[in-house]
């Protein structure tokens, strides 16, 4: 196994002087090829900041962040599909930017929509789909970017519990079939334990790594299984203690 993302002693500070806000404080974290890593923390732990740094949308203040020139794709809580394009058009856009020809693009987009089980919706407009379906289009679009690492920033945060549950199954299946490496940010402990090979718990203000939990339960898991619940309870206790620390 090779390390895909190497985060070594990375800090991120916003502003300077007395207004300075330390978002991330000496974070070290490695993500291996094919691994599913969940970043978990309460508000203000800088988990989204960390994703932005990995995505190259923001610059680190100190330390080293090495993704070895690999491509990343990013997903948000909102699908952020472009309303002027059809569903297939949205999936085709990254392929178009890669300079792939029209026919090949069309074919590839349909394959990707098939992977997220949205064949038959290629010609729809994004607003005609439900929230869960839009996130699957966003996933197909992310896959189209041919990225080595998929960064997900609370992608299911705005969905209802039933839809989220089903999308967990879908994401797990696609992660396995497509041999993806995923860095997944959430504040939902059960979701993290349900999905992750590892759950990295971050402290808040500034964000530091408190603990790195290995989740060894066999897959496919269920979010309501005793193993997942038990492990989630343990992590929740740690998280509660961390939140309480900020009471004074």
């Amino acid at each position, binding site marked *: 196994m090779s390390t895909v993302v190497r985060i070594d002693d990375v800090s991120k500070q916003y502003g300077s002087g007395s207004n300075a806000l330390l978002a991330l404080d000496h974070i070290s974290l490695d993500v291996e090829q094919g691994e599913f890593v969940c970043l978990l923390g309460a508000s203000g732990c800088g988990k989204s900041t960390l994703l932005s740094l990995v995505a190259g949308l923001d610059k680190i203040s100190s330390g080293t962040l090495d993704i070895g020139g690999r491509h990343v794709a990013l997903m948000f809580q909102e699908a952020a599909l472009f309303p002027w394009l059809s569903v297939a058009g949205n999936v085709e856009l990254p392929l178009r930017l890669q300079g792939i020809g029209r026919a090949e693009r069309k074919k590839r987009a349909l394959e990707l929509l098939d992977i997220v089980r949205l064949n038959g919706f290629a010609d729809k407009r994004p607003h005609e789909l*439900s929230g869960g379906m839009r996130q699957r289009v966003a996933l197909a679009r992310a896959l189209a970017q041919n990225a080595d690492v998929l960064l997900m920033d609370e992608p299911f945060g705005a969905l209802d519990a039933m839809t989220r549950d089903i999308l967990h199954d879908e994401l797990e299946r696609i992660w396995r079939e497509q041999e993806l490496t995923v860095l997944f940010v959430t504040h939902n402990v059960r979701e993290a334990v349900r999905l992750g090979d590892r759950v990295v718990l971050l402290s808040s203000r500034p964000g530091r790594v408190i603990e790195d939990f290995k989740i060894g339960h066999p897959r496919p898991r269920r979010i309501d299984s005793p193993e997942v619940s038990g492990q989630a309870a343990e992590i929740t206790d740690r998280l509660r203690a961390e939140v309480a620390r900020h009471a004074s």
Partner: protein
Amino acid sequence: MPAEPTKTTATRAAIQGLDPGAFPPPADLKPVDLAAADRVSGLDALELGPKKEKGRLGLRIWNSTWPKLLAIAIVIAIWQVTVLSEWKPIYVLPAPLDVFTVLKDLITTADFWNGVRLTMTRAITGFFLAVLIGTIIGAAVSRFAPLRAAIGSLITGLQTMPSIMWFPLAILLFQLGESAIMFVVVLGAAPSVANGLISGIDYVPRTWLRVGQVMGMKGFAQYRHLILPASLPSFVSGLKQGWAFSWRSLMAGELLVIVPGTVSVGVRMQNARDLSDSALVISYIIVVLVIGILIDQLFNFADGKLRKRWGLTEP
């Protein structure tokens, strides 16, 4: 592009007289989890809900038309009552029926249509010039921060300036000619077009920009695939407003700047006033109003289509 490897199936092997056993079926066939697939498509079906019935076309047209017809009827009724009350002598304020007779006679003359053609040619030329200039200015202002600081508020200021104020200067600069009219029409409309584009570009959602950035959009590609399409609804609103301003400026111009030898709608209206022909003046008012409404409908139609496509309004 790499060629697809030719697969020799067992069936094909049998046809070619080979031993079918030599080509076992591909082993990489994964078991398909049908239950999971059903769960997903079932959920999709539930979330999308049943399709709404739109109703018959005739009924929809009638539903949108009758309030307008009613409004016109009320205006004509008030007009008729005012005439009957003898508030003003009948040769100053003629009755609706008399005006409609004059209007009917008017629109059957070739002269009238020549006037309309001249006015519309000016309107469309002026509007397109304004769109061209407004777009260039808008794009430049949104791209370069110092330029925005310099003329950003000036553009909004120009928008509030009544266009008729420009005519004295326009006449001094260009004499009584087409250029004077065009000058004012463009000054009236271009700021709205520029502002529409600027606000469209300013309000491209941040997540879209981030998505584009992660996809690797830079420079021109970012404009072409993201910023320009994203600012389209705002740009269309700017166009619509720009049209309204250019139409108003043009009418003011045609009344004030009488280019010798031309008989535009404005000139004809002015002539009717000189002859104290109220019925003809009102007829021209109706003509100008109808043209304005028709073009506005055209913009509304384009705007409505766009919004529906984007899902900005309930279908």
